[in-house]
């Protein structure tokens, strides 16, 4: 046991890191709260569990984020690890209200990876950056022995300026706020699963991997007072809402019927036994804002290609703080939890 680990919930009885710890669900959260943060000690006193950190700097606020991309396979319908990496970081900055200024790209390459593959990934990164208006300014390259790194791992970091009149953070979410979801869920995870060894299935589904900073900019340009933005990634809509509820200390209620699930996502989740709200996304966000501002912001979202299907799905409540409750199609209510770890197909 590492000295200084905190409770209240002890880490699950693993002496080692497991795949589940990277799933974006409860195990990941535990690793952060009960290993990393205590171990970092005083240095991490201001660390926040948000997509990016906002650091005050000479009268400005700088958003700063980092992410690693270990997706397997490297190429999937709708994209590859390269644009995933760039868009993922652009999106984390956007969730703080910042436009991307500069990104760094660090590669860990597996010995034996074909240069053609690396070239295609790098090209995709350049194109994604141009699309998002971001510059790729620095990077690093390392090579590890064959058998490691699944081909390649990419780590990106990004900085952006938060405009002076923008203040989006979990503390601003308040009971009565409306929750808007920018579009249909489950596309990325399903697209990746469809080419995952052992599970392959035929589909025309493509990942929704996209940069959300343009959409965010059009939302912030309205006079709506957006309190919080969160992009959906691993763990799906469920993980995002659960994190918000826990961090903000309020309850969340949403209506399942309002969450659009593309028919193919529903079909794939059906035979694999997965819940679409637990499946990863890479081009969707939720926005939390005062109910009175919802119409204005929705209008702006609908005018943008990535927000065309934006819809109100629920609200923040002061009941059941920290808990997310969904109204089912039959009118009953169920508690929505984060997935524990990796999304695994089931037979039961």
């Amino acid at each position, binding site marked *: 046991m590492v000295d200084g680990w905190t409770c209240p919930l002890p880490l699950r009885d693993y002496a080692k890191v497991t795949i589940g710890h990277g799933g974006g669900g409860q195990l990941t959260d535990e690793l952060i709260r009960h290993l990393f943060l205590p171990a970092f000690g005083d240095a991490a006193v201001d660390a926040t569990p948000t997509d990016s950190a906002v650091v005050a700097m000479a009268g400005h606020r700088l958003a700063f984020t980092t992410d690693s991309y270990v997706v397997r396979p490297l190429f999937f319908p709708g994209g590859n690890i390269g644009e995933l990496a760039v868009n993922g970081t652009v999106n984390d900055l956007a969730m703080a209200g910042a436009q991307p200024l500069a990104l760094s790209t660090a590669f860990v390459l597996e010995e034996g990876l074909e240069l053609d593959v690396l070239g295609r990934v790098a090209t995709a990164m350049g194109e994604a950056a141009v699309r998002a208006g971001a510059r790729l300014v620095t990077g690093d390259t390392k090579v590890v022995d064959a058998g490691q790194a699944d081909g390649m791992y990419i780590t990106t970091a990004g900085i952006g300026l938060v405009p002076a009149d923008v203040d989006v953070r979990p503390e601003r979410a308040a009971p009565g706020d409306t929750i808007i979801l920018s579009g249909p869920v489950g596309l990325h995870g399903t697209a990746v699963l469809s080419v995952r060894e052992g599970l392959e299935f035929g589909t025309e589904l493509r990942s929704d991997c996209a940069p959300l900073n343009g959409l965010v900019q059009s939302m912030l340009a309205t006079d709506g007072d957006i309190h919080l933005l969160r992009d959906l990634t691993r763990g799906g809509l469920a993980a995002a809402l659960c994190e918000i509820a826990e961090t903000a200390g309020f309850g969340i209620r949403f209506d399942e019927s309002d969450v659009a699930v593309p028919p193919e996502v529903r079909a794939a989740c059906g035979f694999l036994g997965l819940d679409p709200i637990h499946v990863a996304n890479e081009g969707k966000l939720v926005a939390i804002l005062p109910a009175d501002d919802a119409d204005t912001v929705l209008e702006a979202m609908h005018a943008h290609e990535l927000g065309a299907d934006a819809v109100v799905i629920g609200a923040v409540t002061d009941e059941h703080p920290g808990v997310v409750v969904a109204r089912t199609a039959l*009118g009953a209510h169920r508690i929505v939890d984060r997935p524990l770890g990796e999304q*695994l197909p089931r037979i039961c």
Partner: protein
Amino acid sequence: MKYLSEFADPVLAQRLLDEISATVTRHWAIMEVCGGQTHSIIRNGIDQLLADEVELIHGPGCPVCVTPVELIDRGLRIAAMPDVIFCSFGDMVRVPGSAGDLFAVRAAGGDVRVVYSPLDAVAVAEENPSKEVVFFAVGFETTAPANAMAVHQAHERGLTNFSVLVSHGGGPPAIEAIVTSPESRVDAFLAAGHVCTVMGTRQYEAIVTEHRVPIIVTGFEPLDVLDGIRRAVRQLEAGRAEVENAYARAVRRDGNEVAKGMLADVFEPTDRQWRGIGPIPASGWRLTSRYRSYDAEIRFGVGDLAVEESGLCRSGDVLQGIIKPSECEAFGTACTPRHPLGATMVSTEGACAAYFQYRRLGDEVVPGG
């Protein structure tokens, strides 16, 4: 007709709920013995929407959760061996044995792979001739034919590097065990629809005749589950006890003869331990002598590994509806979803796990309807 959304129609669901309310005149306890139905009930909130007089008890319906700790530990030991590729359905990977689960074995370097179908494990064996490939063959009768085909195919193809760790259980002996228990409160059963797709409905006729308890063969979509409950209530109110098929689109009285034939060739009944419940005679299956060489427990010599189940665990009583999860001493303390002791806490849809989640709302009732 797509066979899915039609059977989730909220308007028709309300009609079924109203019909149940109009029919019921007193308390009835109805038990389902299928994890898929438990999942559907909790997922759709059916227990919230039902008339108060109808009590649903979640019975031992999850083959994953009732797999004895001992068998899981044997699987973990095999999975940790060098040059073994251990294949499993996704459900099993997070189920803890006495110390750790398949995830932990993978973290320690074991080659653990999730497969969707048992035939995928056979393919892995064909592609990796220098490794031993073991498939964790878990399931009730619905899955047994799939697992049987994997063994059969391995046999036909002369694969010497494939074996199965068998954890199979059967429905009727479990229902029989519950019905004959003196403390049982169950008035009627919903039988697992897809088990019956394979085995047919005849196997329940003797139980119904001998014990005078209605058994309704039920499907999984919201309307299917509600219809099963509706028919059970109707029989109970009328004092009848019969086998009734509420899932006729997928279940015939004789079941699937081809599948049954394969099962009879590959498996034979055996006594079996149920996690948290104890031994139920002739409730499990093992490989017949013709296929015994594919038995991983024998091949890897782990049959001697014996593990005691937790003495604290009362999942057997919960599964029979004798106590509520919150009435168990270990509930929420020694036994939680993170450190489960028995079947009902291991499964995310087990009664104890479900109670654990809803307990988070404290005394406040989550509004239904």
